[in-house]
């Protein structure tokens, strides 16, 4: 299903798909698969994807694993700081359906209720091959203009906020870094 895109958007999407900076939010065990993906063996950079240290300059937010309610608050802060266009990749079965933490009192079970996920990488944990192939899929989706999570977040902001509040009580963070 391709959406109607203006000529400008087509060009922009083609360029966007070829230069992605990724902020990896290493919440769970899956983070350990990223060093091999980034370094010479699998070499993510040949696809134009490179790590970025701050949310404001990143395009991809990679969530590697389970999210406790406490981390989810920080992830929402991080996501809302990022500049559009921005894409979220949910990594590992914990972000998909709770994984082995499906019955935990502290972790959420379904990431796309709270923030718009553009691509899920299934597996516990996905190997670098799967990550690379997932990124290829994401690039194709961006190229076709289908990775529109950031637009969905703007359009359905009320719905996302409602879900966030029902799971978290409040999104506001009270700690020494945010007071």
């Amino acid at each position: 299903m391709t959406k109607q895109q203006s000529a400008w958007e087509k060009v922009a999407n083609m360029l966007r798909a070829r230069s992605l900076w990724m902020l990896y939010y290493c919440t769970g065990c899956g983070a350990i698969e990223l060093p091999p993906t980034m370094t010479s063996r699998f070499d993510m950079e040949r696809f134009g994807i490179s790590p970025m240290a701050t949310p404001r300059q990143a395009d991809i937010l990679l969530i590697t694993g389970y999210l406790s309610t406490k981390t989810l608050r920080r992830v929402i802060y991080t996501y809302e700081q990022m500049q559009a266009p921005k894409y979220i990749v949910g990594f590992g079965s914990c972000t998909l359906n709770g994984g082995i933490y499906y019955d935990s009192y502290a972790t959420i079970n379904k990431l796309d209720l709270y923030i718009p996920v553009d691509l899920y990488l299934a597996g516990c944990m996905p190997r670098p091959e799967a990550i690379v192939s997932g990124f290829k899929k994401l690039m194709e989706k961006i190229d076709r203009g289908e990775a529109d999570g950031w637009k969905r977040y703007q359009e359905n902001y009320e719905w996302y906020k409602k879900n966030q509040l029902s799971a978290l009580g409040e999104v506001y963070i009270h700690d020494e870094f945010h007071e």
Partner: protein
Amino acid sequence: MSSTNEVIFNEVSSLFEKVSFEKISDRKYAVSIEKRQVVSFLETLKRKGFSHMSLITCIDWIEEKEFEIVYTLFNWNTGTTLMVKTRTSREKPVVPTIMEIWPTAKFYERDIHEFFGVKFEGNPDLKPLILESWEEIPPMRKDFDPEKYSKEHFPDRAYEVDFLVKGSENDE
């Protein structure tokens, strides 16, 4: 001060009534002590060589209606671990703090207070350490049902099942 475990244990046993050191393995021992004696007991052990407090943890014996606090001590001279256990009732769980002996105990006590609801008398700072906006009973208690909580607060993904192997766990 490098006395052997036997010497230390004999000395300590002579000072306190009804304590018996139980051997688990060559380098691992356990001992139980009454709650009212726990502070002086740990103080004595610290002076005799068990100077390192590695961990404080808690066990919920729900059928016996008691919480058990376990202090794990380590002796650097003999390389021995000693578990000191004490119990408190589940209805009104209060244990004296051991912050005066090991100041780092403060954080373990905060942690146990948060996750089991055991109060440490004398610890000035028992505010939550890890959880944020928690309103239920402390989550590590055995009568807390994490699955029920998860179902109520965090919706599951609904799957469309179109193929099932006979005898699989979802076969209803």
